[in-house]
């Protein structure tokens, strides 16, 4: 059967490659110093979505992301790999959202998209590591959820069979559609970008990504409507402002600090045989190692 699939994807700062200038002197994060990337597990999710599209003729894959205008890049990255469309939720009113307000915004957008069979996203994003948004979206939509998925084995007769990893083992579950799935990093990696699709979509942008003074490609946007990506505000998705952004977030950050390690008195040794043998003897004498 033809499936309507929405991939939840997030643009995140690459926290895995934090350089020395990533923190300011005040101990806050210098976002500008970190490259923005496609959240790794969301790429695993995109791959599962694209495979389902191939296995189920007539299916479509769209990327849903929330962020500043530059997060339109996430949709392009998806189009380059075989997705059909995308939606960028961007509005100052969405800013400062914790996981609950984020899931509210995403759930409202999914309702607006309508008739979705499968919502699939990464298990968690590397800038928060919470793994909360997937289940919270599922709850808000009143849908079933399958988290920690490793592979969507099949979709037939309105049911998805999914292999998932659990603590110390694996499980196979069957869930009726529509369903929300979150995909683990151990799932198959995403296919690379397709050169033809890159050529086709490289000028695709959201209106807010374009400079106000216009570009040399404006004629293209008139000729080819698919190059104008969907961009939605809170009002566009009929969202309740009180449930969005900072005001829709029950959690508040009381304090943020750079951890100051309790510096210990340490012995510094070289890699010489004498130093290492000396340490081993010391640890043995004090019965720290047996």
């Amino acid at each position, binding site marked *: 059967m033809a499936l309507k699939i929405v991939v939840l994807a997030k643009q995140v700062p690459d*926290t*895995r490659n*934090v350089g020395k200038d990533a*923190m300011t002197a005040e*101990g806050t*994060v210098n976002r500008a110093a970190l490259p923005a990337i496609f959240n790794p597990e969301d790429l695993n999710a995109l791959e599962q979505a694209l495979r389902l599209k191939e296995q189920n003729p007539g299916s479509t894959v769209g990327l849903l992301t929330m962020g500043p205008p530059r997060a339109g890049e996430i949709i392009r990255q998806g189009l380059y790999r075989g997705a059909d469309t995308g939606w960028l939720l961007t509005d100052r009113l969405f800013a400062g959202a914790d996981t*609950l307000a984020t899931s509210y915004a995403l759930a409202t957008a999914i309702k607006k998209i309508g008739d979705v069979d499968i919502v699939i996203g990464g298990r968690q994003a590397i*800038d*928060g*590591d*919470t*793994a*909360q*948004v997937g*289940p*919270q979206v599922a*709850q808000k939509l009143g849908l*079933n*959820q*399958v*988290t*920690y998925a490793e592979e969507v084995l099949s979709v037939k007769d309105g049911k998805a069979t999914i292999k998932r990893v659990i*603590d*110390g*083992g*694996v*499980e*196979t*579950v*069957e869930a*009726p559609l529509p369903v929300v799935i979150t995909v683990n990093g*151990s799932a198959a990696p995403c296919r690379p970008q397709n050169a033809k699709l890159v050529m086709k979509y490289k000028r695709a942008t959201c209106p807010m990504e374009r400079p106000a003074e216009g570009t040399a490609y404006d004629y293209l946007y008139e000729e080819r409507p698919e190059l104008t990506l969907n961009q939605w505000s809170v009002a566009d998705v009929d969202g309740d402002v009180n449930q969005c952004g900072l005001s829709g*977030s*029950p*959690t*508040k950050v*009381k*304090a*943020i600090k*750079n*951890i100051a*390690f*309790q*510096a*210990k008195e*340490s*012995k*510094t*040794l*070289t*890699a010489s*045989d004498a*130093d*290492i043998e000396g*340490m*081993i003897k010391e*640890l043995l004498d004090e019965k*720290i*190692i*047996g």
Partner: protein
Amino acid sequence: MANNVFVYCEIEGTQVQEVSQELLTKGRKLANTLGVELHAVVAGTGIKGKVEDQILPFGVDKLFVFDGKDLFPYTSAPHTDILVNLFKEEQPQICLMGATVIGRDLGPRVSSSLTSGLTADCTELEIGPYEDKKNDKVYDNLLYQIRPAFGGNIVATIVNPEHRPQMATVRSGVMQKAIYEGKAKGEVVYPEVSKYVSPEAYVVKVLDHHVEAAKHNLKGSPIVVAGGYGVGSKEGFDQLFQLAKVLHGEVGGSRAAVDAGWIDHDRQIGQTGVTVHPKVYIACGISGQIQHIAGMQDSGIIISVNSDPDAPINRIADYVIVGTVEEVVPKLIKYYKQNSK
């Protein structure tokens, strides 16, 4: 009586998971600080008479046992229904659960349903006041949910001033379990499952459920040899396994090493992995991000092998050996063999 501290106890078959017992001990302390009761909830199939003794000794005043068909293996909706409806009746102020696959599936679902705040993977929980300067309001006795954030580069204290319950998940091994010495009521009730769970909640079917005993005892090992990005390769980790073998220890890795595919994910040490408290921790080629430090800082003796004398981990090390992993680890093996026994 409302306003108590609740712990969701996770099970595999009829075995209560250790992380839940660790949280009961922490929950008891929080309840004592707040002057309220500690309540626990457990749900499964055929558990009546089998789980109570694994839960009550940790200082539980009241235990809710939901025993019914298809509550094990865990699926999201029935367990969500149980907690949501129970919490509507009981109005707890705090709910703790393990930051396990189950806890991280269930917690957000419950929090979304109750519109309450949830903080994942806390490394510390404390009680304290909070001043909301913007609205000029002061709150007493909030739960401080403390966790490394932003890839472990900062530590954040999160509070939920207005919403209840204040929910937090904590990884296995972060808190220490202990039989409660004080007095607790130890009441047990067996509510009727069908009053809490709608029949439609059982639509997700578990076709196959397979859990193996842990392949290693990293969490309980007295000696841990851990490798980071500085190990350089999967082959480099073979040396660490050799060192661990002669020392009768276990091998772990930093997130960077796990991401690089040099060591299995279940051996990751840190906030988003296993927390260890060994007698001796040998960090090989690990720079020491907060995310990693959070999972090993309570180790007894810390030995850091690193070619960078200024690696952050060296600040908490007892011994710093400045050199490459490749050069130093074989020497550790050699001189241990020569000098031991």
